């Protein structure tokens, strides 16, 4: 039996030693030998103990120790895998624990002795706890001071205190409980002791251990007094204590809040719990494979959260094995209690089993989010010397008692509470396994897709992400390095705001985020290939390359136009909606994210914002374009544009028109007063309809994040104040689509930033190829608008617009496009500059006129 355990742990160590080679897809066999160090130490200790119990206790229960050794082995290797440093310490603790185990085993009258000196043990335990108030430390420097430092070794006295308390209670009940005893002298002394110990621990803020004490006490009391109804104390006390604690202690309140809904603050106070659930989900049924997962994302995975580390790498199968193993030890312990020769032995064995059960349940259910988290160790597996040694001694006592059996049948009255508690514990453990299964399977995908799941960054390091190309063939973003050190590099930093980033610290944004499934190798690949690769490596396949519609030459022009100015340019094919250029200045460089992150966040000119899609700019005098049709359709409107009218326009507008010799009239020059005239002359109902047709109230169907569209005003409101339209805040991409519709004879094309992905067979497959155009106006209307806005002798139309952001910052818009005289690809353009820019129309000429068709 022990042999099977030794082989299983050996297999685990061997699997761990292969992990590095598997992760990096090494050609040759790579073995990380250091995983065999903890295995060797574990094997040595385990065999030493086995040899000694074989000699001294030939009639012991033969299953308990192998099960214990299995848990210790899995725990030790998991700790080592998370941190070899802590793993080494834990190995030494196992050595010390085995030494104590073997020494205590050789004491002939150990059980009698500990029984006789019950008060000494109790006092010793309590004194150690009290000492932590004065000279307590925390090995990590911060947090609860629950440890004592002795000769450079940290000891947590609450661990041995648990065992000492069990011994005291067992001895006291065995000595004092007689059928005729009153409650006062039989139970009262223990109540005082337990309450005192509990208060000490609560004062230490060690709520987990305190709750375990109370539950343990109630369990032992109900079994020894054979009163089943006492068990109801546990849930009712938990409820009362929970309610009081919730309002009295901040610690309790936070714990309960994050337990009720970890996703409310998953990146803050509930980080650990949220990560724990994600880790369990990442493991799924079969686990990621030893050494192949990322359990280190859960803080303190080596101790309190070791169960999630096991659950991630060994999956539901491995985690259930751990729980079944624990349950097995517990049930064997209760069995030993029932067979015990003496009352003391019976109570002690039961106490130890109940203690293992409570501790396991508290921490495992806490990890899985079933109950509020209490920081206790998982018996045998968690990192922590005091806990391991205490648990080993407890097992030693169980083994000793398993040899002191009686063949006498216990009366049913005595036996039934034990069976009852055993069934209760079994049911709770089975429910815990079921909940683990729920997280690992039906709920798995939802948890894995959480934004807080950082595992994609690990995948990116070991399995290359797909690269991003421009339509013109240039590589925009590439993956450099080799498996284990892959990094993302942007070749066109000015496109960073659109391409986004995939950075382990700052997450994902832009195309990198929205096209994650292609780039990361999930979409576009058959599930069988994906499944097999993920089973072998716990990595997605190399990602698929993407081709954007970006035309790099045109992009350069847009960037040159913006240069040091603040604003955005978007150029698209007016017929197909393909986005040829998308520029937003100031921009950030995705390659220098780490260096500049703080300043990028703090800068007032918001370089992280993609102004082409995420800015919210007031429409301003561009409203005229949107209002044309509504004015024309309104029978009451008069001919607005006469030279006489021009004279009453505001002086700034007049200056603009004069300075800008291209400008033929007030509309083209973007005069606010002209715009207001137009809005006032429009039919409000048809204006509202038109705005809606133009997509002003809906976000453009672009793959990257866009700003929130404005809410449609009420018709009454618009009736009262048509100038409201000028204040609606839109993003440049929306206006680019309006420009495209006017250019494309009233048909608004769907915007298309991404063109195609390269499938595993090496063929480009178009993405979203067949989206329909939307007819937003009649062809004749579109033509008339173009004619109104086209300067003579040029195959382009445009309109300048003015607006004010936040009542101070001037904004200059330009929307435009090609006319039917244009010979190449019909183009639509939008420019938005956060400044007064009277020279915009010339810039437009520079961009469009000497542009040759990209097709």
């Amino acid at each position, binding site marked *: 039996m022990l042999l099977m355990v030794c082989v299983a742990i050996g297999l685990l160590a061997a699997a761990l030693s292969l992990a590095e080679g598997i992760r990096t897809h090494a050609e040759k066999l790579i073995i990380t030998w250091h995983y065999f160090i903890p295995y060797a130490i574990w094997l040595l200790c385990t065999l030493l103990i086995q040899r000694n119990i074989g000699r001294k206790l030939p009639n012991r229960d033969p299953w308990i120790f192998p099960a214990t050794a299995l848990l210790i082995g899995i725990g030790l290797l998991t700790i080592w895998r998370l941190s070899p440093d802590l793993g080494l310490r834990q190995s030494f603790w196992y050595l010390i624990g085995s030494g104590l185990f073997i020494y205590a085993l050789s004491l002939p009258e150990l059980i009698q002795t500990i029984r006789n000196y019950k008060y000494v043990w109790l006092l010793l335990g309590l004194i150690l706890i009290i000492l932590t108030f004065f000279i307590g430390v925390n090995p990590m420097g911060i947090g609860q001071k629950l440890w004592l430092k002795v000769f450079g070794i940290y000891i947590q006295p609450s661990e041995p205190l648990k065992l000492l308390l069990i011994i005291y209670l067992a001895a006291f009940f065995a000595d004092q409980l007689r059928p005729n005893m009153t409650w006062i002298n039989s139970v009262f002394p223990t109540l005082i002791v337990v309450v005192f110990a509990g208060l000490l621990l609560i004062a230490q803020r060690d709520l987990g251990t305190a709750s375990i004490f109370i539950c343990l006490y109630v369990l032992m009391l109900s079994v020894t007094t054979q009163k089943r109804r006492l068990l109801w104390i546990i849930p009712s006390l938990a409820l009362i204590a929970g309610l009081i604690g919730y309002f009295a202690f901040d610690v309790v309140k936070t714990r309960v809040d994050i337990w009720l809904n970890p996703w409310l603050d998953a990146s803050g106070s509930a980080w650990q719990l949220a990560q724990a659930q994600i880790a369990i989900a990442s493991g799924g049924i079969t686990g990621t494979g*030893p050494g192949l997962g990322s359990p280190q994302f859960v803080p303190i995975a080596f101790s309190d959260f070791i169960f999630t580390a096991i659950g991630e790498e060994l999956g539901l199968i491995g985690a259930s094995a751990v729980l079944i193993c624990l349950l097995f030890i517990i049930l064997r312990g209760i069995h030993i209690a029932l067979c015990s020769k003496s009352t003391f032995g019976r109570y002690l064995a039961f106490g130890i089993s109940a203690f293992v059960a409570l501790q396991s349940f508290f921490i495992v259910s806490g990890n899985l989010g079933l109950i509020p988290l209490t920081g206790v160790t998982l018996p045998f597996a968690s990192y922590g010397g005091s806990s391991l040694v205490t648990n080993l001694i407890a097992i030693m006592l169980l083994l000793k008692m398993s040899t002191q059996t009686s063949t006498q049948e216990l009366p049913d009255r005595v036996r039934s509470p034990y069976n009852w508690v055993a069934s209760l514990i079994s049911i709770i453990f089975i429910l815990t396994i079921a909940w683990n299964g729920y997280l690992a399977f039906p709920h798995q995908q939802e948890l894995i897709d959480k934004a807080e799941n950082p595992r994609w960054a690990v995948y990116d390091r070991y399995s290359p992400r797909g690269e991003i190309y421009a339509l013109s063939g240039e590589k925009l973003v590439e993956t450099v390095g080799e498996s284990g050190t892959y990094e993302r590099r942007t070749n066109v930093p000015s496109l960073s705001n659109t391409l986004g980033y995939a950075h382990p610290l700052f997450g994902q944004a832009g195309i990198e985020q929205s096209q994650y499934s292609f780039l990361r190798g999930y979409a576009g690949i058959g599930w069988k290939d994906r499944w097999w690769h993920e089973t072998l490596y716990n990595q997605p396949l190399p990602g698929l390359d993407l081709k954007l519609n970006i035309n790099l030459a045109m992009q350069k022009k847009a960037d040159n136009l913006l240069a040091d100015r603040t604003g955005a340019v978007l150029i698209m094919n007016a017929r197909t909606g393909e986005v040829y250029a998308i520029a937003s200045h100031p921009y950030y460089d995705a390659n220098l994210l780490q260096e500049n992150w703080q300043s990028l966040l703090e800068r007032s000119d918001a370089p992280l914002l993609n102004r082409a899609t995420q800015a919210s700019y007031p429409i301003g005098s561009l409203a005229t374009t949107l209002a044309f049709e509504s004015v024309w359709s309104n029978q009451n409107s008069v001919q607005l544009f006469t030279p006489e009218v021009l004279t009453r326009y505001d002086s700034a507008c007049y200056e603009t028109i004069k300075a800008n010799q291209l400008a033929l009239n007030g509309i083209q020059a973007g005069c606010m007063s002209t715009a207001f005239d137009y809005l006032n002359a429009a039919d409000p109902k048809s204006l509202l309809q038109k705005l809606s047709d133009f997509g002003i109230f809906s976000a453009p169907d672009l793959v990257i994040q866009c700003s929130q569209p404005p809410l449609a005003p009420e018709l009454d409101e618009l009736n009262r104040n048509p100038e409201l339209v000028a204040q609606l805040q839109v993003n440049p991409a929306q206006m680019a689509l309006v420009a495209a519709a006017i250019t494309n004879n009233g048909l608004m094309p769907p915007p298309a930033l991404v063109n195609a992905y390269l499938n595993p067979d090496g063929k480009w497959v178009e993405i979203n190829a067949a989206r329909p155009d939307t007819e937003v106006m009649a062809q004749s209307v579109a033509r008339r608008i173009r004619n109104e806005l086209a300067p003579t002798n040029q195959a382009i139309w445009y309109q300048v617009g003015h607006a004010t952001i936040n009542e101070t910052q001037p904004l200059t818009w330009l929307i435009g496009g090609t006319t039917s005289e244009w010979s190449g690809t019909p183009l639509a353009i939008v420019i938005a500059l956060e400044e007064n820019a009277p020279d915009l129309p010339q810039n437009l000429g520079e961009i469009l006129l000497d542009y040759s068709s990209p097709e």
Partner: protein
Amino acid sequence: MNAVIGLILRILLFVGLYAFLGMAVWLLWKSITGAKLRGGMIAIPTLTLTTTIDGEQIIQTYTSSEVSIGRNPDSDLILKDDTVSGRHGRLSYQLNQWWYEDLKSTNGSWLEDLKIEEPIVVKDNDSIYCGDAVFKIYIKPLEK
């Protein structure tokens, strides 16, 4: 290559784990459903001890695997004699034998004229001297 070996190791690990747990659970099931609670425990030959205290013969039969002997009233066999220590000695059934062990008593234990320094095997009809007191051991062999 690495990955395939890794996968095989993982499968073997799961098989090993569950083979162990399967056996354990099977045993547990057997002990729960077994007719007697001590399902997994071994059968013990019944032990009968006789002694004479104040001229009165005492015969006691034990079915447990351990019997304590001493002057203390909580001993399984109480020898009321001033030369007997409180916890004098212990009989225990191990490796299919009954063993007697002296618990560092003041006046020692003797099997006939042999001083018992370390655990020894006792047989049917053996007499053990504890100080001035003596008790005799009868072991009923197990029924086949």
